[in-house]
């Protein structure tokens, strides 16, 4: 089309080259070529009078041919064809006037929806000093295809719910609208299924897909028709509710979703139970920016999941503070290793038969420049999450071996190795061998302590790694025995050198018959399997007497010493190693 207009303009310009062009009557354009076009084409003047039209004008737009001769007003001619609604006529007239007013030669365009369902693209352009051409093109088919493609791009094909993009746009629109101070403008719910992955893994993806479709159905049932439901991840959904009403009402909506998603599903004869956790935030109370509001709802979701699942939480500012503290902790941790802020403390283990010092357990400490000592319970889980635990674990191994190499020959060192370190078994075995070699420490003096969770993850690969460590000459003990799910099974899966009885049993030893029975049974089990047993957390003489009577081989706890820094080790060895029966707590 552009080419046609350009040719027409060029011809007009050539003809207009002689001086007297203004007064000359407008020659009729040759219409033959125009008649062959699928578009309706017309030429009009500055007063919006129709000068010329092609066959398309008569066909597509139904303009009566008789009208053309009398130079009618353009809108009257179009109105006579009865295809234009009053709005479409007004829009056409406006855009024609706009084209006439333009002096820069740029095209004017408009979209028109005609009464017979045709979708029209109208383009207007000046083709002479006071002549304009209007081209009406039927784009019905194109627009239908376009809207189908658009629908596909906007919905999740599996569930028919909106996708993340639509959700984000809708939230932007809702929050951009003016709102009163009192009422909530929008509620955003972040929903996460609690148990989707196991279902997907055990019953297969087709069942997982069926479940997601059923979930979408339950969400629709729990919500109003004008709430937007979007699937934004594998098993994550976001709901946007406009003008959600009073807060209790929002709680009720969240509770209803938790209720409906927590009910059983029956899918192809299988009974399937999942559940959902929900976090929500309100605008403008919690945030008024779309991304900030989504983040608030997401933080609330995180808390809901941490709070035991199948529940909902509303965002509170403390959550933000906690998340910020957590981010800071993360940043500080990433620097701590390079800045040598970690150190090891050592707690002695005493052999009950000889009464002598058997060795030390190395315990990690973080001395934060501003916060002082931070408990491992706070920073170890974060280290595991951000992947710092492997290099940190290697640092512990190296340091513990180096320091132990300076102790008397009979004194061993025990180092805790965590589950993530076993994910790269070769690297772990290499790190242990390297630490021993560098420190020139007798491998017999190193003991690796693992918890049951280590064996539960990657069972076979972990056992192989444990055997490889054992081949280096290192001993292996099971820590926190009795606190896991299947301690006895784990005991069978690897020939441990030592069992460490969890402190919780030792602490309840005198008050709880169950704890006493467990300690006695584990000591007897160790004796009959030929495995050493260490009771942890021994604090009183009474506990010590009982443990000795039960037959444990080793004890560790505040009764003998709190964990001490490397500098104090010498004194501790001197006091413990020489005393025949250590009884008194060594307090610093």
């Amino acid at each position, binding site marked *: 089309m552009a080419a046609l207009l350009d040719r027409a303009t060029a011809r007009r310009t050539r003809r207009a080259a002689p001086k007297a062009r203004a007064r000359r009557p407008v020659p009729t354009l040759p219409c033959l070529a125009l008649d062959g076009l699928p578009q309706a084409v017309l030429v009009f003047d500055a007063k919006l009078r129709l000068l010329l039209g092609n066959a398309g004008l008569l066909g597509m737009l139904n303009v009566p041919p008789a009208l053309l001769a009398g130079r009618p007003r353009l809108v009257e001619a179009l109105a006579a064809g009865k295809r234009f609604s009053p709005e479409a006529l007004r829009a056409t007239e406006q855009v024609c006037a706009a084209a006439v007013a333009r002096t820069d030669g740029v095209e004017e365009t408009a979209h028109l929806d005609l009464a017979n369902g045709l979708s029209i693209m109208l383009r207007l352009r000046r083709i002479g000093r006071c002549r304009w051409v209007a081209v009406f093109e039927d784009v019905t088919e194109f627009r239908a295809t376009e809207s189908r493609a658009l629908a596909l791009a906007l919905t999740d094909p599996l569930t028919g719910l909106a996708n993340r993009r639509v959700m984000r746009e809708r939230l932007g629109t809702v929050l951009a609208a003016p709102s009163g101070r009192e009422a909530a403008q929008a509620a955003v719910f972040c929903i996460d299924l609690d148990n989707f992955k196991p279902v997907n893994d055990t019953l297969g993806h087709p069942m997982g897909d069926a479940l997601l479709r059923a979930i979408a159905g339950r969400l629709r049932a*729990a919500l109003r028709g004008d709430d937007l439901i979007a699937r934004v991840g594998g098993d994550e959904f976001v709901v946007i509710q406009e003008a959600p009403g009073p807060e209790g009402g929002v709680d009720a909506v969240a509770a209803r979703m938790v*209720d409906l998603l927590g009910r059983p599903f029956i*899918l*192809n004869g299988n*009974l399937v139970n999942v559940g959902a956790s929900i976090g929500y935030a309100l605008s403008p109370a919690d945030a008024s920016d779309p991304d900030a509001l989504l983040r608030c709802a997401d933080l609330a979701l995180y808390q809901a999941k941490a709070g035991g699942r199948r529940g909902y939480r509303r965002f509170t500012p403390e959550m933000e503070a906690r998340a910020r503290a957590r981010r800071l902790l993360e940043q500080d941790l990433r620097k701590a290793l390079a800045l040598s802020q970690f150190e090891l403390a050592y707690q002695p283990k005493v052999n009950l038969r000889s009464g002598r010092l058997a060795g030390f357990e190395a315990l990690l400490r973080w001395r934060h420049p501003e916060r002082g000592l931070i408990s491992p319970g706070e920073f170890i889980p974060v280290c595991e999450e951000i992947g710092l635990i492997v290099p940190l674990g290697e640092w512990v191994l190296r340091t513990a071996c180096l320091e132990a190499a300076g102790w008397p020959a009979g004194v061993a060192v025990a180092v805790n190795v965590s589950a993530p370190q076993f994910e790269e078994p070769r690297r772990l075995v290499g790190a242990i061998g390297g630490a021993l070699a560098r420190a020139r420490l007798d491998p017999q003096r190193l003991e690796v302590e693992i918890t049951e969770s280590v064996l539960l993850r990657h069972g076979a690969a972990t056992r192989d790694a444990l055997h490889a460590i054992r081949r280096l000459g290192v001993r292996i003990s099971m820590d926190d025995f009795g606190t896991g799910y299947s301690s006895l099974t784990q005991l069978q899966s690897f020939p441990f050198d030592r069992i460490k009885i969890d402190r919780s049993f030792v602490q309840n030893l005198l008050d709880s018959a169950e704890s006493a029975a467990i300690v006695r049974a584990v000591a007897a089990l160790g004796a009959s399997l030929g495995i050493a047993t260490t009771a942890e957390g021994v604090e009183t003489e009474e506990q010590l007497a009982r443990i000795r009577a039960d037959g444990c081989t080793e004890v560790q706890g505040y009764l003998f010493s709190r964990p001490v820094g490397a500098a104090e080790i010498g004194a501790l060895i001197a006091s413990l190693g020489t005393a025949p029966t250590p009884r008194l707590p060594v307090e610093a």
Partner: protein
Amino acid sequence: MSGSLHRIVYCSRNALAGSAASVSGEIRDILALSRANNRRDGITGALLYSGGVFAQVLEGRLDAIEGAFERIQRDPRHRDVTVLQIAPAGPRGFPDWSMAFAGDSAGRSDPATAARLAEALADPDAVGGEELLDLLRDLVVREDEWALAS
């Protein structure tokens, strides 16, 4: 598999508030709708309401009863849904009923039945789907005899 006869047995707790009369009214509505849907979908079964607990048996093609179950699951008028059985079934237990009804709203209440239903909700393993099925069959037949005799 989806073409052969299957059975779902579940129980749930009433979530309707209001007077006994309004609850009965709601149950009548539930029954009317369920009967219409079930006739269309080739489903038979029974509904028992006793002591604030619903027990229901749905029997028919697997896809049909799963569809009905999912519709029922989305209903806010009950909660604590516990599925006692989902399995292929022999002959229909309620061949003549699109949804038979037995329960308090029929004018009488049976404490033993109510207690057994409460147990089923508390511990699904204690009261199996088969036992509940028998209980319902027994009650429905008795109601039927009672209706004929009166």
